[in-house]
């Protein structure tokens, strides 16, 4: 859990067609210290704003009037500009939470169910703001790597004595880059 976050100056786009709901989220975000917030009331307006401005975070309602919200997420991910890396947090209502896989497969970072209290908003933003997940681009998908959980052995499976302890502590060195990992995996012929 992050104890402190500096949200001042974090340019954020809130996409929500419901003006009252958008106002509530805006009030909460201002309370959390976020001061640079733009509101788009449709998917089309969001596209225009994203094309014109550099945003650091996007909070998108799952129910947009002019397009399915997963389509907006996919559009963002298929941009050629750095906008395609935009962290996207989708807020969905009670009846729409079954669509969570549609948003994940469109490339959203996180889907959260409304109502978003100040506490859940803070914690979810903190989660999205962790050092970023690897980005995947292929024909069928563009977005953050969907396989990011480290869950250990399944329940009921005893650990072996030779397994590492589950408490492995914090990293002391930076992660390996993809090139370094590739080099570790690359078989090479040794000429003697």
């Amino acid at each position, binding site marked *: *859990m*992050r*104890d*402190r*976050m*500096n*949200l*001042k*100056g*974090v340019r954020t786009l809130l996409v929500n067609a*419901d003006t*009252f*709901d958008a*106002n*509530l989220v805006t*009030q*909460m*975000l*201002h*309370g*959390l*210290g976020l001061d640079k917030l733009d509101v788009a009331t449709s998917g089309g307006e969001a596209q225009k704003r994203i094309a014109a401005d550099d945003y*650091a*975070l996007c909070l998108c309602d799952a*129910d947009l009037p002019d397009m399915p919200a997963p389509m907006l997420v996919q559009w963002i991910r298929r941009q050629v500009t*750095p906008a395609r*890396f935009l*962290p996207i947090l989708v807020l969905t*209502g*009670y*009846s*729409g*939470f*079954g669509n969570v896989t549609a948003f994940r497969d469109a490339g959203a970072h996180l889907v959260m*169910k*409304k*109502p978003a*209290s*100040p*506490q859940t*908003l*803070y914690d979810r*933003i*903190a989660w*999205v*703001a*962790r*050092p*970023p*997940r*690897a*980005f*995947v*681009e*292929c*024909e069928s998908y563009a977005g*953050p*790597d969907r396989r990011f959980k480290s869950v250990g052995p399944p329940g009921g499976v005893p650990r072996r004595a030779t397994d590492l302890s589950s408490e492995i502590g914090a990293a002391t060195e930076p992660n390996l*880059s*993809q090139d370094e990992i590739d080099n570790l995996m690359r078989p090479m012929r040794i000429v003697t």
Partner: protein
Amino acid sequence: MKKPVRIFPAPGYLATLVERPGGLPRSQAIIEGQRRLEAQRPPALAVIGGLIETLENLAAAPARLPDIRRAADQLITLATLYGLDGLAEAGRRLCDLVLALEAQQAMHGDAIAVHVRALRLLCADASNAPRILDELSRVRSHLQAAGPSSGAPGHRTQ
């Protein structure tokens, strides 16, 4: 030719920004967010009243299930946010009913009207919530006994 899969580190612009010195401690930020949310309680209660009125109008001509679901969804969000638990629960039950009706392409105007009436009663006086919710459970049991095409909600969306 198929486009190759590219996996690469994404730039962590947001991570860099939030790590800057300054900003509010988590506890203080949440308190301030809660304070601002609480300041919106009177207009939120007015919006809830408006949503119930909308639902009453929609229930009179219940051919527009997605509209009913959307209004009920908004009501659940606001009621939960402001601690109106009975109202939120009745809204969830209406949502479950509408989702089931949509899935089965069925219609049960009376059951929808009963749920909307329950919302109106709970909005006026939450002290009767256990009894009203119990009555809604009886409606649900009745629909389940009537068979799958009656719009009986099978399970919660989560």
